[in-house]
């Protein structure tokens, strides 16, 4: 259920042990049950400051000003949106690097209601010019991407959640994996949308691509595989069309048809499970297949 969150805590604890320049700033979320032991082991640079997300990001930036590689983390809405100006100015404008891990994605916390949803996280993060945006789809990819980016000198948003693919890929930041070759369309799945996308595309003659990086985006691979007049379908775990700028600019030199299958741009006034809200949004395999067939028609 929360394999990615466990993986985040495990890798973060290991990085604190391995690299004396790593700092962790938490605002109560994931302390008990996940990272309390790391905080006990490294009391000077692994700190839980209480429920204060603006300060969490500002304090992380203070660590970065002193040459540390800070990691800050909360529920996606409370690390990507609430302290947005601290991310924009304290990290972006000041030219500092840090890692921001948001758990819960679009509506993992389905039963908590939309106060705990963050389908806009990736979009608002990409509005910060230097921000890298990563969406691992498997707990092993969480480890690989965190280790590849925690000291990259750039602000990096890592989106984790309860939705996950059944198998990991050997991923790297800024790289698209080619999962299947086909002729009728290209389907680009981001992060945990790969697994429902594979089910949705069963028996279809489509190329299937897998991206864990929205930024940096692997424009070269996309441009190389889609062909001259492609139909491109993006399957996104966040608001539909979030990837539009990256995808369309990668193949701006050719005529193309697009479809953006993601979280509808409306407030959810419903509870239940993530799977319930996936069905409502048309993001279950059945819904995704219906949309892909419409585009290919």
């Amino acid at each position, binding site marked *: 259920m929360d394999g990615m969150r466990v993986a985040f805590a495990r890798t973060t604890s290991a990085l604190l042990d391995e690299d004396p320049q790593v700092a962790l700033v938490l605002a109560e979320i994931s302390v008990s049950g996940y990272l309390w032991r790391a905080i006990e082991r490294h009391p000077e640079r692994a700190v839980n400051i209480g429920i204060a997300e603006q300060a969490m990001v*500002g304090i992380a930036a*203070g660590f970065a000003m002193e040459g540390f590689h800070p990691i800050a983390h909360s529920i996606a809405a409370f690390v990507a949106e609430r302290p947005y100006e601290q991310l924009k100015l304290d990290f972006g404008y000041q030219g500092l690097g840090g890692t921001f891990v948001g758990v819960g994605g679009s509506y993992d916390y389905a039963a908590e209601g939309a106060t705990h949803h963050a389908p806009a996280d990736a979009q608002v993060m990409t509005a910060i010019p230097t921000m890298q945006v990563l969406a691992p789809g498997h707990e092993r990819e969480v480890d690989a991407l965190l280790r590849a980016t925690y000291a990259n000198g750039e602000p990096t948003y890592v989106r984790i959640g309860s939705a996950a693919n059944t198998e990991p890929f050997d991923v790297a930041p800024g790289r698209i994996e080619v999962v299947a070759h086909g002729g009728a369309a290209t389907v680009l799945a981001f992060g945990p949308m790969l697994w429902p996308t594979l089910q949705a595309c069963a028996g279809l003659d489509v190329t299937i691509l897998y991206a864990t990086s929205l930024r940096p985006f692997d424009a070269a691979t996309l441009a190389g595989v889609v062909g001259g007049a492609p139909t491109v379908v993006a399957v996104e775990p966040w608001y539909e069309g979030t990837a539009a700028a990256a995808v369309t600019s990668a193949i701006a030199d050719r005529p193309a048809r697009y479809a953006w299958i993601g979280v509808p741009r409306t407030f959810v006034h419903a509870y239940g499970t993530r799977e319930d809200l996936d069905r409502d949004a048309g993001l279950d395999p059945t819904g995704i297949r219906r949309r892909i067939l419409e585009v290919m028609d």
Partner: protein
Amino acid sequence: MDTTTDALARVRALMARATGDEKHEESSTSTLDALWVLYDRVLHVDPARPADPDRDRFILSKGHGPVALYAILVAKGFIPEAALDTFMEHGGTLGSHPDRTLVPGVEASTGSLGHGLALAVGVALALRAGGRREPRAICLVGDAEMNEGSNWEPVLIAPHRRLGNLTMLVIDNHSSTPDMSPWAERLGGFGWDVYEVDGHDRAALEVALRRRHEHTPVAVVADIPPGEW
């Protein structure tokens, strides 16, 4: 005139060189005495080594009215005097809010109110985590800037983290719409050691700004009565 008076007269002349005006907005001149005391008497900073890891870190949180800071950085040799001639101009490095990537000696890019104190808490934590016991983080905020809720998060956190290497300097030029006093009760209630001084009394400012405890952050509230900017 004594040495300090001469030096401050030069700083005022440098401020005039930047702005082309003998008068200055209150956000610059209300900070002048405190900034001078910091850079002349208190801060361990060296213009030859602006990135010295053992320097004190000064963060102008409010970012507004940085002309006094720029003039003092010129007087102390951090930036060339000619930089003042292009204040706020395209191609210049000194804007009406400071940019740390452009100005040696400027620790933080500020101007959006309510950011600097959390940065200073992070710097103080990082200094401690790095085993640097001597340097301090000193953060200047304005009384109206303290309206911002984002300041009260680090006000709460700094005593809890026992940050004896942190000083908050409040320049109270009475520009806040809600009355921010009584400072001693309010900040003291969160666990800060609070000193209230006349914001133009350089001797008192120096004593207060030198104060440091092992585990308690210090707040120095420099009062600038209205009309005395």
